[in-house]
């Protein structure tokens, strides 16, 4: 029974991903910050009826009803806004909720994650075709792709700067970004080098590993946790002992802009590259 239902849901998913879904989608729920940004960038925001907690840009999006954190959605909560199309970033869940939404015959289109220019273009094309505006998607994807290429071309220095992305400094423990993360992707697009590319994912790292990584710059999210002041960052013994600590070089950027990989990726690349250049050695 469940297997049958899942098979049915899968077929629905296939249909929804194709142009067949174009007829629907007058009441759209957008799950995931980048997905919501894409809907706005396509000019289709009039069809949105709800969003998830991570969809904080553009600010108007925050006026929409919030169905909760993207990985912890309540099935009845999502159904309560009577959606006829759900655009969900990869990892939206829990899986039980997604299965129930599909059982309720609401088309769910999953938008795959990815941390490079091609992935951003793919996200835009998928969202646009689900909304029945593939031409506009093609145009936006092309424009965003060009912008990212342009921003990347002008970015970087030789030798590349080593950047350490610090997700949090809770209790003096450095939680940093390794390879395969959105932070790693944006650092590389900005022509710099992830100082911790040896580990995979966001991990707590030891002080010695931070020193061995020898970052030139510390990168943090502007909205990361309750105010970690610059002085607190640089007084951390391990960070203090790095080149970044010696030169007091810290870049803070808005989290969704920096690691969202939505239509503003080019802006993120050029902002980060500019910050690295200003902060950088001449």
């Amino acid at each position, binding site marked *: 029974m469940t297997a049958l239902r899942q098979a049915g849901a899968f077929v629905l998913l296939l249909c929804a991903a194709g142009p067949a879904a174009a007829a629907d989608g007058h009441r759209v729920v957008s799950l995931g910050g980048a997905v919501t940004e894409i809907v706005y960038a396509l000019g289709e925001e009039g069809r949105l009826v709800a969003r998830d907690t991570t969809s904080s840009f553009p600010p108007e999006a925050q006026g929409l009803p919030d*169905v909760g954190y993207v990985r*912890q959605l*309540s099935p*009845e909560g999502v159904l309560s806004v*009577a959606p006829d199309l759900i655009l969900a970033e990869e990892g939206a869940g829990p899986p*039980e909720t997604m299965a129930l939404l599909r059982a309720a015959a609401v088309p769910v289109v999953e938008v795959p994650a990815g941390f490079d220019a091609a992935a951003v273009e793919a996200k835009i094309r998928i969202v646009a075709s689900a909304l029945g505006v593939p031409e506009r998607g093609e145009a936006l994807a092309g424009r965003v792709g060009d912008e990212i290429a342009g921003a990347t071309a002008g970015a970087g220095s030789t030798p590349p700067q080593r950047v350490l992305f610090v*997700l949090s400094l809770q209790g003096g423990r450095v939680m940093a970004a390794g390879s395969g993360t959105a932070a790693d992707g944006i650092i590389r697009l900005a022509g710099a080098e992830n100082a911790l590319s040896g580990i995979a994912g*966001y991990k707590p790292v030891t002080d010695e590993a931070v020193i061995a990584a020898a970052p030139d710059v510390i990168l943090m999210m502007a909205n990361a946790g309750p105010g970690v002041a610059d002085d607190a960052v640089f007084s951390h013994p391990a960070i203090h002992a790095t080149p970044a600590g010696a030169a007091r070089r810290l870049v803070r950027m808005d989290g969704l802009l920096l690691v969202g990989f939505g239509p503003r990726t080019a802006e993120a690349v050029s902002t980060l590259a500019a910050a690295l250049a200003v902060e950088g050695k001449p």
Partner: protein
Amino acid sequence: MTMLRPVALAADAADRSARARSLTGALALLLAGMALASLTLGASGVSPWAALADLAAGRPLDLQARVVLWDIRLPRLLAGMLVGAALAVSGAVLQGLFRNPLADPGLVGVSAGAGLGAICAIVLGGLLPPALHAALGLALVPVAAFAGGGLAVVTLYALATRAGRTSVATMLLAGIALGAIAAALSGILIAMADDAQLRDLTFWSLGSLSGATWPKVLSAAPLILSALALAPFLGRGLNALSLGEPAARHLGIGVETLKRLSVLGVSASVGAAVAISGGVGFVGIVVPHLLRLIAGPDHRHLLVNSALLGAALLLAADVVARLAVAPAELPLGVVTAVLGGPFFLWVLLRRRGLTEL
């Protein structure tokens, strides 16, 4: 400790028995009311009465209403009753067994073991052979939680049993040690987890009924219901045990059997409950205490009343969890504590003059 002493004047005892029985009726009504609320209230505004009217008139039910009522609210209602009853009765049984008012399922390692199982599934699930992973699917985390809880209790029981005798004191202390070991292993896995897995873990440990689906409810129900069916047979034994083990033996109670049945029932029902709802604290410790304050410590009534009040409390908390920030949802464990804590304190302070605590 003194509150568990069943010695009381005969007249007093009869009075308390009558009060406990009328309390059972009142709690059954409360539970029925909560069940109705749980079925009627939700973010979507789908009404079961409108659905019934449609069905009676022979109109086909619209698909979304059917999913909301049949696939979301009904399994959630049943899951809430099962989990609430399982946690509250387990708490009451363990407090009786250990003759310690602070005992709860966390103390015999079930919760920690189940938590470790769930964390293993969330963090290491990707390492399973793809065929096995696909076969388990959504059941992976619940199955792992149940297995972890069961394994913890079996280990604990083996540790505390020498020559056919189980030492309750050893079990209590070994339970704390096992809990610490499970927490340490969980800590290692948490250090290995990625950002998304950490989020999943946090939400899992705060508990929720929003993942309650028919397959989960149907697989947990036999375990919890058989453990609940066992409970009435433990009442007399637990009463005798409150006089101490030797006294209970002289009263003709099979103390070792009592311990074995209690531990078995608790581990099966708490393991299954945690598998459905994740970690929901507070119910197991507060519900039995509340009932003892109101109607005395006689386990023959306490166990039944705990099941009813536990189920009603969990349903009430779940209704608040799903309505408070609709269309989003609050974690269930947060609501049980926020609702239950102040109420328990109020009852405690109000009755302190009357009951010797």
